[in-house]
């Protein structure tokens, strides 16, 4: 177990390191941030002064080493555009993204697992077919489009929900979030649903497929033959085994929700990391881009790590292998 954790840690360090190099070179290849930031009416002297102030006058490898030296000490640099430490900007935006991502995740799971299970157990029933039809629509409508449809429907034509932006925040138990307030929920529910729709449809299909596959296996047939009650078979034997592929997919999807709500955040002008990422790429704010994508990489590594541990505790086969090894 310990060696597994250590191995994972080492892997993540390598991933982050490689990622930072790729990002540095990538931004450098795209263009010169100075050309975007500096007014076209500025004189050459002003231009040079700005380039020096941003540290862009040094060769790229030197800029990278300076970045690396600071990053090791916990300083991820200062945004070119806002002149604030990138960590404080990210921390400012993180709660909004976490809120949106988590609410979307809960909606997606709460709908997709029961629906997928039902559709897997009774694939021929009208409701089972209905679930499949819904999921097909869900995966095929682009996120930005359904987001705009939702806004038009519930924000403008039938104005029952506020359009865009995060609601009021409140602090309880040391956590500041808009989820403590009614206003906050009225703001989050539409973007969260929009963000959840695709994941929901995807997870429905995964759950259904896994359920159908497992229902056909011998141990299920034997359980029914032995006279185990239907509900018990479904919960103990089918669902539990279906969870294994589901958790792998869910893990990645959760990381996606938390880090890449880019489109939803843009459409709903949700002040989270996704919107920030798009805006910082537009102006080539390298320190912000690097810090954000590094955060994303760490998030993916961390969630995959949790997924692996969950696998061990859920999958009876993996468990028995581990027990035997011990």
């Amino acid at each position: 177990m310990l060696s597994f954790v250590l191995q994972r840690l080492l892997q993540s360090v390598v991933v982050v390191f490689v990622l930072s190099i790729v990002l540095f070179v990538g931004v450098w290849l795209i263009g010169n941030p100075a050309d975007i930031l500096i007014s076209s009416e500025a004189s050459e002297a002003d231009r040079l002064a700005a380039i020096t102030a941003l540290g862009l006058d040094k060769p790229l490898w030197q800029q990278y080493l300076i970045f690396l030296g600071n990053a090791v000490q916990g300083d991820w640099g200062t945004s070119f555009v806002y002149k604030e430490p990138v960590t404080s900007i990210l921390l400012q935006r993180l709660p909004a993204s976490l809120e949106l991502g988590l609410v979307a995740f809960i909606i997606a799971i709460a709908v997709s697992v029961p629906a997928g299970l039902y559709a897997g157990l009774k694939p021929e029933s009208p409701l089972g077919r209905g679930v499949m039809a819904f999921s097909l629509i869900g995966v095929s409508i682009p996120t930005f489009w359904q987001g705009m449809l939702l806004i038009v429907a519930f924000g403008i034509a039938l104005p029952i929900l506020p359009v865009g932006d995060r609601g009021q925040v409140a602090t309880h138990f040391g956590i500041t979030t808009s989820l403590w307030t009614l206003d906050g929920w009225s703001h989050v529910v539409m973007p969260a649903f929009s963000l959840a729709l695709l994941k929901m449809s995807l997870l429905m299909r995964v759950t259904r497929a896994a359920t159908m596959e497992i229902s056909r296996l011998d141990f299920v047939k034997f359980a029914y033959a032995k006279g185990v009650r239907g509900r018990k078979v479904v919960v103990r034997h089918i669902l539990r085994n279906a969870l294994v592929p589901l958790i792998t997919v869910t893990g990645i999807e959760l990381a996606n929700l938390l880090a890449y709500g880019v489109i939803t955040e843009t459409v709903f002008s949700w002040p989270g990391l996704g919107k920030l990422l798009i805006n910082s790429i537009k102006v080539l704010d390298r320190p912000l881009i690097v810090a954000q994508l590094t955060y994303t990489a760490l998030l993916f590594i961390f969630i995959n790590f949790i997924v692996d541990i969950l696998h061990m505790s859920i999958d009876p086969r993996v468990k028995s292998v581990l027990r035997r090894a011990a």
Partner: protein
Amino acid sequence: MKKLSLASFGVALATATSLSAVPAAAEQLRVGLAALATSVDPHFHRAGYNFDLRENISDALVYTNGVNGTVEPRLAKSWEIQGDTKWVIALEPKAKFDDGDGLGADDVIYSICRVRNVPNSPGLFSSFIATIANIKDAGDGKIEIDTNKPDPNLLRSLSNIGIVQNPTGRTLAYDDKTCGNDNWLETAGFNSGKVSPGIGHYRVKKFTPDVEIELERNDQYYGTPPAYDSVLVKSLPDNSARIAALLGGSVDVINAVPINSIDSIQSSGKYHLSSKPSTLLIFLLPDQGQEKTPKVSGTDGKNPFLDPRVRKALNLAINREQIAETVMGGMAQAASQIIVDGVFGHEPDLQPYAYDPQEAKRLLAEAGYPNGFSLTLNAPSDRYVNGAQVAQAVTAMLSQIGLNVTLETFPFSIYFTKASAYEFSLYLAGAAADTGEGLSQMINLAGTRNPDRGWGGANRGRYSSKVTDKALEDAQSTLDDAEREELLRTAVAEVYKDDGYVPLYHEFGVWGVRNGIHYDANANLTNIFYTARPE
């Protein structure tokens, strides 16, 4: 003494009446902008979105009114020119900083010195103060500014420099470097609210970069108080999100209304448009700086744009009215020249080129290209309102005169790097008049490109003419308005005659406003919150 008290009585009366003109119901104005200021620091970064916030929270000596083009007093109550290079400016005695301290000459000197010394600025305002040789306290609430040559636009330039409170406790001795000071206010202090950005109609209550800015009325303000108690400015860069926010009622005003939403706003009955031709010129610029140009073929290696007949053919090939009416939905006006009408330096005698593809073809043939040639038109994909569609329309129009045109677009983030490296042969771009008058725009666009001198910054096709340069150079040091305007018109006419530019149109600034609110459209595309009022 008696006179003075009478005068102050009059001022009090005026203030009282203007106060009573403000309806009690006026509370918060919520504005959604396509780009939000990146800092509260008035000197931090020279960019359009920062001009916006600065004008509302940190007064400069004067204000260049983008609605009617005049220069209005702000912290400078009055001014006069003595000789050619000396300006005596009387400061507004009623102007007070947040702590109640009155405005002094030392604050002005400190602020102008700080312009060159903002720590880690990504783009300084220094070119606005380039002509200042010295500033000193002339006593009696006056300052004296000496310029190193006659500078007719000194005040307009200074209208971009917000005045902050001098924290050093002494009056700095002006020079064009550090003014003997090595400890300047940090930008972060302004953003966190620790340092006040100066004296403005509004104060910043909370600044959240890239999300929103909360402003509240400055009750100590010396001039006309704004109608709204507070203003909430939100960042809504995405077009559809911005429109949705307006139609959904979460903001009252949006700027940069996308063309395809104009109908839905006008037909709703609940919103109206506030629009005005802006100084932003959208143009095509052919490469006139090199013998061989990178993106043209079929000309035996020659650069066809060095031939004035070919440039004229380009001008004749464009149907400007159609672009303005169809592609831009009427939110643009066909351009004959760089400077828009109503702005200082505009030459009213010039008309936009009439659309004449036959004549264009004839000129091409005369220039030795009866079968045209192949070229790539470059355009930014995400910079100007409907810019990509305009580029497509232009491509089609140029094909009509027998050119084999391919359109190639790039995102703004890399476009100008390439344009500055002269990688384009014919490119589409835009440029506005930062200072609200024509001279700076002409120097920026039509002046021979010379980075050291700060000329031709946006002239990436390297149009160059001795006549134009001479006229602009003379205009720079001509204080007499009529004479200077004549020089500018000479330069404008010369560019027209040379076909140095292919001006397309001047874009309208378009705001979407909820009915019941008056919001001024502004030719400089600046957002002025303090003139907004309920109606």
